């Protein structure tokens, strides 16, 4: 059974090309994926991300539970509304999923996890929560719209109740707050995203999602599909679960070392395996690749290095750069002259530090 978000009819009325995305019938584009990409880099675009899973956690021991569940440390969350990106690992240190956790009260945290991993995530979280007496509540009653781009925040704020303008205008990066939207609808506004641009991800009760979408459209925010979302996040250097990492890959091997908090005395799931890997030396690393020649880097293409072969994870034409970029996992060590096998032809590529693009501009050295 294909699932539909509450905005499905709205996408179809806009003439979107719909595709199956992890069991969800979602818009890949509304005409031109490249134009949608550019509008997010230059102005403001919106994505229906209602397929993502919102999970609320309640109980006096919720923080203690999250200290155990997540590889990043929720002790970094000290101010209400603050958000943290983290991996959730298995005992072997493999990534079950990546997620954002919001601190909404000492007894109330909110997780946003991926759509494609919903069932296994919920099963895992529920199983682990039992020992802490934490209540795990999925929130299918919510829809979610990401509004991204240099003008995104201003366009959203103009739609909020007057009394919220200043407070939401001052909302820091990676923080969230409640606000009143058009017609007084209750919104949860988070200054987060998956594009490398400033903007908000807005959680809205399903019954108000269409009205919010229409208000945003009337304010000049352009609809953008999951195709543009994918090229935007790749340029921004952000991993896609299932493509760039999974349960056979540790955060060390997915360039997510920065999200692992080895704080004193915290016994999180997967910690022992991560420490052992680090002590032994991590054997595979994730790098950025740029193809200066013509052609497109794609998932699965072999990457040839001085220490053996690796493979492209996410790869695509990057509209902001007008050339192809990719993430690849390759053997650790000085890689030498790196080539990618494109349909039997060995094409030289450059290994670079990413992100490739930030705040609308190519990063240095790309």
């Amino acid at each position, binding site marked *: 059974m294909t699932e539909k978000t509450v905005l499905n009819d709205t996408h179809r009325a806009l003439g979107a090309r719909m595709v199956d995305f992890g069991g969800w019938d979602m818009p890949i584009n509304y005409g031109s994926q490249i134009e949608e990409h550019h509008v997010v880099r230059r102005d403001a675009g919106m994505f229906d991300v209602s397929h993502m899973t919102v999970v609320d956690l309640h109980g006096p021991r919720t923080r203690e539970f999250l200290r155990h569940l997540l590889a990043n440390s929720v002790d970094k969350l000290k101010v209400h509304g603050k958000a943290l990106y983290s991996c959730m690992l298995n005992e072997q240190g493999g990534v079950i999923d990546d997620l954002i956790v919001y601190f909404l009260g000492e007894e109330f945290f909110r997780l946003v996890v991926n759509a494609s991993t919903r069932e296994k995530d919920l099963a895992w979280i529920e199983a682990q929560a039992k020992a802490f007496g934490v209540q795990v509540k999925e929130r299918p009653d919510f829809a979610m719209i990401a509004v991204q781009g240099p003008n995104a925040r201003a366009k959203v704020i103009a739609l909020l109740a007057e009394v919220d303008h200043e407070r939401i205008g001052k909302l820091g990066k990676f923080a969230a707050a409640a606000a009143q939207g058009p017609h007084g609808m209750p919104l949860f506004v988070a200054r987060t995203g998956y594009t490398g641009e400033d903007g908000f991800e807005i959680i809205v009760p399903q019954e108000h999602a269409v009205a919010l979408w229409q208000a945003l459209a009337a304010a000049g925010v352009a609809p953008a599909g999951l195709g543009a979302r994918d090229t935007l996040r790749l340029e921004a250097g952000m991993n896609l679960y299932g493509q760039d990492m999974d349960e056979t890959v540790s955060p060390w091997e997915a360039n997510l070392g920065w999200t692992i908090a080895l704080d004193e005395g915290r016994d999180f799931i997967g910690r022992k395996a991560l420490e052992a890997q680090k002590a032994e030396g991590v054997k595979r690393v994730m790098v950025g690749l740029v193809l200066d020649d013509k052609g497109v880097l794609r998932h699965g293409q072999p990457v040839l290095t001085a220490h053996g072969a690796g493979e492209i994870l996410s790869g695509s034409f990057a509209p902001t750069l007008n050339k192809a970029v990719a993430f690849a996992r390759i053997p650790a060590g000085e890689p030498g002259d790196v080539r990618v096998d494109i*349909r039997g032809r060995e094409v030289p590529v450059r290994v670079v530090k990413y992100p490739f693009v930030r705040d609308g501009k190519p990063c240095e050295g790309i």
Partner: protein
Amino acid sequence: MSEIPGDLKFLKSHEWARVEDDGLVRVGISDHAQGQLGDLVYVELPEIGASVQAGHGVAVVESVKAASDIYSPVSGEIVAVNEALNDKPETINEDAFGDGWIFLVRASDRGELNELLDADAYAELVENEDH
């Protein structure tokens, strides 16, 4: 979706062939195919002079989304390629049946053209694909 020109013949894999006045066969992909692929960003053209076989891969078009082989509808020799696609691959999105042509073949057996779908049969194929 734009009208399918009546003088074209098609492969099921969405390539079109048009016999020009000089007898050469011009080849491209259909408007339906470009719509399915999305924004095109790169076209790998064949070599002029290369010999091609009907139903075999000759060129590659890459959209943001995916790479697709382009098959030749007829056997013969490549006599010209659309160099303009090197700089403007999006021409295929804009004018798939016209300026977005990909290569030109001197057919060794024009009889192969009879095995292709005519415009009506192709329209029906696309119609069925959409449902």
